[in-house]
């Protein structure tokens, strides 16, 4: 059974259909990817899945149960965590405190929460900056902190919204490595990414959106050879 | 029949009051829309304008409506000065609470009210204009009218000025370059900046305009209202209710919000009792926040 099933998800803002009848699923233990040009509705879809926005119509099922209509914190408690494209660190808190704040979800006792947070920091190569205030960190670290905080809630499914955008090549390799390690831990991932190198190298299954609608899906090779996808990205050949 | 008469008379007073409220609300909503800040000194600025109008009348015999020529530019300058010297620096300060700017305007309001008390004492003042009690009666124009209604002269004249000012503001925002730049800044500050609009200058002009509008309201209210230094707080709250009611930053909303509040207050005073009018105001305010968070403007957009 699929871990996440999105069925006919539709979101209309005013007169504009941002997400148009999108159906896809993510199998447990895999890395799924959502790609598409800017404004294709990828982040809106994430917001629909984790409950920030109500669906206009359609369903979202997680572990076989409907989660649409639940508030984001309930979705998170069920094991679905997300990161934000525009990173939202708790600015005046240290990196460690940021992660502790999300560790409390599974470890109500403070000592346990701290221990777990330190493990997560080690896992995401952030131990060296544990004591730093997150506001002043370079983007690469903040992007990883975003992942660390989501991981600290011990999710079964992790939604990563452009976790690699704006990184330099070294940071990029490091992040890809971390995403692989997360998969190895048995955590399912759904990722939004523009970086084709990242998508092609790590994802098992790709869903392509354009103008809010799904135009293709399949394995990386299938998608790369799909003329509709090429057209969406490069425009009509003239 | 008497009941209908009372109802219509109450409605008329409400609309006249609402028109003046709209001018206060317009200033507030303009500032909120462009600068994204809440000006808790709004009523105090109006109080300053009222003192200007009062002294012009008492010392020089200048009619309150003529004093508009003084209060509008004077308050514009005061607004620009406040924005440049106080608000603008605070917007750049990094602090834990972004609400600092709201608290700053509270401080400004406290100072203005206190200075007024020190210089002018806390006495109640009024401007006894010759036409204060004049009114036009329906029966004078329509002999066989089944009901009797009256229009107070100062209220009606003030309402007329309020309409003219509102129209002028609308024309300014729609048709002048500065007006368009202000609207652009309100919509998207970053985009406006990239289009080469001097955002810093626009915020200054906006705060000046907001102050000028409430200054005009001061001149329009003074023929009918008692003046005392602490009256600002009440009008600041009224400005808010209007802004929330109308939808933040919406000019049409502020006008409709002003009229609705005017009618509602007038009705509360007639049918429930004078003392409860402020409660009614807050009930509207809270109900709006809870049920109509985007105000009347949001409602219009939805349909």
């Amino acid at each position: 059974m699929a871990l996440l099933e999105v069925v006919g998800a539709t979101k209309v803002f005013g007169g504009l259909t941002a997400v148009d009848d999108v159906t896809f699923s993510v199998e447990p233990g895999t890395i799924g990817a959502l790609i598409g040009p800017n404004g294709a509705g990828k982040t809106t879809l994430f917001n629909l899945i984790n409950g920030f926005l109500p669906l206009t119509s359609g369903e979202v099922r997680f572990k076989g149960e409907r989660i649409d209509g639940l508030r984001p914190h309930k979705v998170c408690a069920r094991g679905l965590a997300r990161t934000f494209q525009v990173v939202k660190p708790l600015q005046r808190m240290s990196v460690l405190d940021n992660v502790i704040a999300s560790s409390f979800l599974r470890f109500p006792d403070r000592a346990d929460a701290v221990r777990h947070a330190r493990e997560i920091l080690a896992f995401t190569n952030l131990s060296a900056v544990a004591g730093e205030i997150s506001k002043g960190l370079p983007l690469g670290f903040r992007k990883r902190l975003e992942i660390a905080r989501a991981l600290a809630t011990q999710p079964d499914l992790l939604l990563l919204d452009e976790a690699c955008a704006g990184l330099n090549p070294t940071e990029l390799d490091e992040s890809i490595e971390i995403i692989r390690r997360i998969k190895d831990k048995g955590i399912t991932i759904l990722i939004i990414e523009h970086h084709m190198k990242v998508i092609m190298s790590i994802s098992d299954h790709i869903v392509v959106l354009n103008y809010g609608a799904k135009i293709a899906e399949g394995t990386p090779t299938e998608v790369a050879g799909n003329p509709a996808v090429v057209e969406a990205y490069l425009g009509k050949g003239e | 029949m008497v009941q209908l008469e009372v109802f219509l008379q109450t409605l008329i007073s409400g609309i006249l009051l609402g028109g003046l409220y709209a001018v206060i609300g317009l200033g507030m909503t303009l500032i909120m829309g462009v600068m994204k800040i809440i000006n808790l000194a709004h009523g105090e600025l109006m109080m300053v304008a009222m003192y200007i109008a009062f002294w012009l009348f008492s010392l020089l015999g200048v009619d309150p409506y003529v004093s508009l020529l003084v209060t509008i530019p004077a308050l514009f300058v005061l607004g620009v000065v406040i924005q440049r010297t106080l608000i603008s620096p605070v917007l750049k300060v990094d602090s834990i609470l972004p609400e600092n700017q709201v608290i700053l305007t509270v401080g400004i309001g406290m100072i203005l009210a206190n200075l007024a008390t020190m210089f002018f004492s806390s006495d109640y003042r009024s401007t006894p204009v010759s036409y204060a009690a004049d009114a036009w009666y329906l029966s004078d124009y329509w002999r066989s009218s089944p009901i009797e209604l009256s229009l107070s002269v100062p209220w009606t004249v003030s309402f007329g000025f309020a309409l003219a000012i509102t129209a002028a503001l609308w024309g300014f925002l729609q048709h002048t370059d500065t007006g368009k730049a202000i609207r652009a800044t309100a919509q998207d500050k970053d985009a406006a900046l990239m289009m080469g609009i001097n955002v810093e200058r626009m915020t200054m002009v906006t705060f000046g305009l907001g102050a000028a509008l409430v200054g005009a309201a001061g001149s329009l209210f003074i023929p009918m209202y008692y003046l005392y230094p602490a009256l600002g707080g009440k009008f600041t709250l009224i400005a808010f209710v209007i802004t929330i009611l109308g939808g933040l930053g919406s000019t049409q909303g502020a006008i409709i919000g002003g009229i609705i509040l005017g009618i509602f207050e007038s009705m509360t005073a007639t049918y429930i009792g004078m003392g409860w009018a402020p409660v009614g105001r807050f009930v509207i305010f809270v109900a709006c926040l809870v049920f109509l968070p985007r105000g009347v403007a949001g409602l219009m957009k939805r349909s």
Partner: protein
Amino acid sequence: MAQSSWFRNYKVAACVLVALAAAPLVPVLNSSYMLHVLILMLMWSVIGMSWNLLSGYCGQVSFGHAAFFGLGAYTAGILYLHGGVSGWWGLPASVIVVGLGSLVIGYICLRLRGPYFALGTLAMGEVLRVTAENMEWLTEGTMGIMIEKRTWVAKEPFYYIVLALAVGTFVIMELLVRSKWGYYFVAIREDQDAAESLGIDTTRYKTIALVISGVLTGLVGAFYTNYMGFIDPEVVFALHDISIITIMVVMVGGVATRWGPFAGALIMIVLSELIRAMPKIGTAHQTLFGVLLIVIIIYLPNGVMGDFRKVFRLVRRGAAPARAGGE
């Protein structure tokens, strides 16, 4: 081991407590006037700490703490007036009344964010004031409620009661800020959407912060009724003299700092007493407070405790003008 580190952390607190507890024994301080000033200071510290929890730590800036203060004060006053019991029953009773009132206020206001929450709470304070003015059968309206027979003539008992309240509040704050709740409060302040998506029930924790903050402020209100012996709506639901002063106390002292509310209360009370003592300036006290507020916001946005180093540097620079100019 744990004991000694606990003591190290709270050495300052222990010293302050001993000093405050001993204050009435010092002859210079043991005048009716000095004790009154200390009582006021402690009252404002408690209100400041409770505001600090909701607004400083949890980021929900309240412009309406007078609502809680007034509710507490009137609970005590109405119990005395209509219940015929001692006003001191108002303290336990106010916990219930203000607790329920806070839930209602929270339900209405907490769906609003940022400045709109501030305005919502401001409106709550005003609604309660006007209601108290108009419900004469219950509150005696603008006449106010007078407690004819004060419990004690001497100030010491009042002083120790409010000191106990302050110590209790301080301990509650320390426990809270270091707990899971404390982390959640700050997470909500820093980014509500991030907090929500990380599994924090933001509505619930904001409500918790608001109820604790409200109840503590309400207790001070109930104490005030017993201490002053007279309340009226203009005084206990005052926008400027309660809600705004509350904000000033914490902003002057330092938002989201442990000692900020104490420092702020001390500075504000001493200032207002000094100003009152000078008849020429006395009428200008609002102006002076306003100027102080503006100066603090622009130059010490984190208050005396938060910008401790900055204050220190300013003082030193003043002492050694030759070194001025360099930052």
